[in-house]
């Protein structure tokens, strides 16, 4: 019975950290969300993950961040298309940053820089 209880707890963790993202989420630090505002250099609507390459101005210098998103099949279902965002778009994202300190992370929220929602096709 105890084993079942432990398994149920693990199950809850499993459900929130799903395998549907192709790889484990351990590389991202969900406890330290970070908000970035910048200009999109490229939107890679690709498998197994989509990415936004975001140019962020930090300390007077431009830094490029790789923001990981779901696969196209998942994003498509949420209304995303390959031109939902594109070069030059000003956006704001909240990410779970890479634990290794790299300029990257897994997206949690996204909007245009002024806070308005992206134009999605639902």
């Amino acid at each position, binding site marked *: 019975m105890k084993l079942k209880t432990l398994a149920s707890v693990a199950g809850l963790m499993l459900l929130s950290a*799903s395998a549907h993202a*192709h790889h484990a989420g351990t590389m991202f630090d969900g406890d330290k969300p970070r908000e970035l505002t910048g200009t999109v250099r490229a939107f890679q609507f690709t498998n197994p993950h989509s990415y936004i390459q975001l140019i962020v101005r930090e300390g007077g210098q431009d830094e490029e961040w790789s923001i990981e998103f779901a696969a196209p099949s998942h994003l498509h*279902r949420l209304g995303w298309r390959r031109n939902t965002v594109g070069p030059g778009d000003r956006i704001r994202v909240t990410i779970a940053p890479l634990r290794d300190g790299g300029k990257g992370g897994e997206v949690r929220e996204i909007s245009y820089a002024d806070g308005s929602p992206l134009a999605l096709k639902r």
Partner: protein
Amino acid sequence: MIRAALLGTAAALAFLAVPAAAQEADNRCAPSDTSALAEWQGVWLPEGLDTDISGRFLSRGSKFVGFDAPWNEAGWERVRANLALFGTGEYRVIGFGFPAMLDTAGELSFYVGHNQTVILNVYRDVQIIHTDGREHIPADEAFPSTWGSSVGCWEGDTLTIDTRYMQFDPTFSPGHAPLSDQAHFVWTLQLAEPEKIAMRMLITDPVYLDAPWVVENTMLRYYSAESLLLDGSNNDRTVFEDGSHTISADGSNRTGLPDMPAPAQLSASEMALLAGRYVDEKSGAAFTFEAREGRLWVTMPLLAERSTTTPVFPQSARQAVGLIGHAFDFVTAADGTVTAVEITRPDGTSMTAARAAP
């Protein structure tokens, strides 16, 4: 026979609520009218299972994770071991296998033919269900796989399926129910409504389950996609560095192919000097160079020693490389004529072929 066996099994399992079986044991499991099953076409989604924009957070868990399954003690130990592996974070999902493929956050399609029905999901998991009345192949001839082996029988709008020889592979379906390769699946698919396919599955496993495990699920028609947006790895930027995964900085080279140096442009007269037939005296191998359509070509023993014609990429007026990496160095006499070609194969071995013609 298989129809009778399947329907008999299903009928015995009253909770499966399989529609009344046709009593004729005519060994025909094909749909009586394939055109009547046209509504199965299209794209379907497991009901209520979706992700956020990261792809990591699900609206509900897969029903094949199996925490509600009646595991025996050995089964629970196996579940624990499977989750320990899952918890390392070192897994990579390359598909879900059977039966997890039927309840992922990805779409499915059903292809109903006369002798087989095929289920495909976006993760490129495939389930081929033979409906030509065949029996399962004997266990000692079976080839266990991640997707198992399935035979089925149609009765009206319901397909009853028997799946065996599934081999659990944690590379697929990480964190999902780690059933044994003796697991047996009897399941039905029914187009319950024009927009809904109902699945009921009875799973028995003499190794890890104390009792049959019943899984019920529904798939809803998904109108926003005309076909599956198949998963792949053309931009796999997850790399393993310093003991953990991270994102590679550059996602521009999606194929991973090396850049090749641009070939030199030779004039027609320069190519004409190289054109001709060259023979290696020791092996008898012949190499014929010809210029046509503005390009140099070579016909030589290539694929399984069969003579094959492929383009040649000049590096200079006397040097060139072949399509799969042969290096050609043409030997010139004092009068400027080309007398031989030194050929270095991709494995580093070489030969010299003397000009035989013209």
